């Protein structure tokens, strides 16, 4: 809980008071008592353990937690790429039985089609959904302009830098105009400088699209900078420990990362993670 010695100074990071629960009717994403289990050679692994959460339309929510805690698995369930062992995942009121074009995904690796130019990679989704070639290319060209890669429209992915490739991957996911955009450590493979630029790009981009975003990251700075809410997950089996809302004013940019108010905020957040981590560790010891 909050450190009593450090009064809630500029603490705009608080337990989300009216945190939408999985029964909130207007929520666009609803996860109810979701468990996901994988069969492995030596039995089963519980990757996600009875998680419930809700995301409101237009919200930007980050999932943070240690490696292997089930962030990707939870995100994949929202994408329809993993099916629940128990529980329910709905987007816009409908169960995620498989991938759906109104839910887009950006992975840690860009996974661009190497045989397609930037333009055609972005046009892939609209084409797959039955749009005419001209229409699909028009959509692609608009997005290429938005991500600032007009000069590279006809380049093949392997000729682009990692950051440029990831921008194309984001544009490709946006081409189907998804209501929900899921991002799994999209900047995790980039160097610090490029990552900062990409974060600013994403903040700016977000002003222009009205997708709900769920964003997985290891990086607490990134989570606070980008999100309206940060969900902190425990080490495996994956559960959500805390649901924190970030009250920093928008528009934001990576410049706030050196702001003293922000630093205080981050310190509190890290304290929370540490104490929760210690608690989990002590629990493990008492069980053992």
């Amino acid at each position, binding site marked *: 809980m909050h450190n009593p010695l450090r009064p809630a100074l500029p603490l705009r990071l608080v337990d989300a008071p009216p945190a939408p629960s999985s029964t909130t009717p207007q929520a666009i994403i609803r996860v109810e008592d979701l468990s996901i289990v994988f069969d492995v050679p030596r039995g089963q692994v519980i990757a996600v353990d009875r998680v419930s959460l809700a995301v409101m339309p237009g919200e930007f929510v980050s999932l943070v937690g240690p490696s292997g805690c089930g962030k990707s698995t939870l995100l994949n369930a929202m994408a329809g790429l993993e099916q629940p062992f128990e529980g329910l995942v709905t987007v816009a009121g409908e169960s995620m039985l498989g991938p759906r074009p109104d*839910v887009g995904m950006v992975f840690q690796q860009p*996974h*661009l089609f190497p045989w397609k130019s930037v333009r055609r990679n972005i046009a*892939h989704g609209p084409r797959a959904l039955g749009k005419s070639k001209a229409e699909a290319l028009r959509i692609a060209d608009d997005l290429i302009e938005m991500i600032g890669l007009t000069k590279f429209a006809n380049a093949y992915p392997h000729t682009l830098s990692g950051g440029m490739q990831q921008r194309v991957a984001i544009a490709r996911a946006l081409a189907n105009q998804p209501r929900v955009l899921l991002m799994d450590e999209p900047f995790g493979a980039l160097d610090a400088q490029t990552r900062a630029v990409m974060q600013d790009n994403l903040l700016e981009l977000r002003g222009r699209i009205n997708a709900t975003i769920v964003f997985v990251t290891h990086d607490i700075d990134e989570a606070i900078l980008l999100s309206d809410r940060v969900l902190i997950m425990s080490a495996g089996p994956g559960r959500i420990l805390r649901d924190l809302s970030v009250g920093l004013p928008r528009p934001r940019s990576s410049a706030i990362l050196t702001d003293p108010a922000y630093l205080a905020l981050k310190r509190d957040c890290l304290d929370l993670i540490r104490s929760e981590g210690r608690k989990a560790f002590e629990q493990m010891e008492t069980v053992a």
Partner: protein
Amino acid sequence: MSVGRRSRANAAGRLSVLVGVLSVPTFVGVWELIARSRIVNAVLFPPPSTVAVAVLDWIHSGQFFGDLSASLFRVTAGFLIGATGGIVLGVLTGEFRLVSSLLSPLFHILRPIPPIAFVPIVILWFGLSEAGKLFLVVWGVFFTVWLATHIGVQKVDRGLIRAALMLGTPRRQMLSEIVLLGALPYIVVGLRTAVSISFYTLVAAELAGAFAGIVYRIEIAQQNMQTGQVMGGLAALGLLSFVADRSFAAIAERAVWWR
């Protein structure tokens, strides 16, 4: 000093180019000298000049183009049929567990048997017909291309498949575009190996009995002790498969166009 080193490197480069250009003529010259020196039996080991005369006769008699087109047809048709079958079945076994369980064990048993070992049974089944020769070439090409495609399909980046799924790619496009192009680099390697295999099997097919063809001509010449003609045939076969391999390499480079 570095200039000196560079000019020495240049000199070495020029020398190796010169040696490269002279390599074949020197070999032919030495061969001519040895064959004419009567150290060896000139009937069994004719000089290149005799081989050249035999090849010219072959061309003038009009048989050469008949033989060439017969062999080319067998190799090309057999390659195309075998490669198409191999790619289609490779995609199916690579992508569908059930098809793989059905066919892969069978293919893995049949694949290691050298195609040449099928000559006797092919003669029983097809006699000396063209179909039997095609069968042998198709057989040899098919398994190589099938295996390469099967492996290629299984190695397609799962991330690409997931990305395509998230974008709403229909099942059919998934197979015909994402899986097929994802496996293409492997398939191309398989096809290139299959080019030389198609020539091996051509040799077996024509030796088994034919009425025209380059290898057939070599065999006839052997029976008539026309050693020059035999060597001319070998040279023609070597040249043909060399050209086929090089043209395929050039095509392959363009096939994976995004690299």
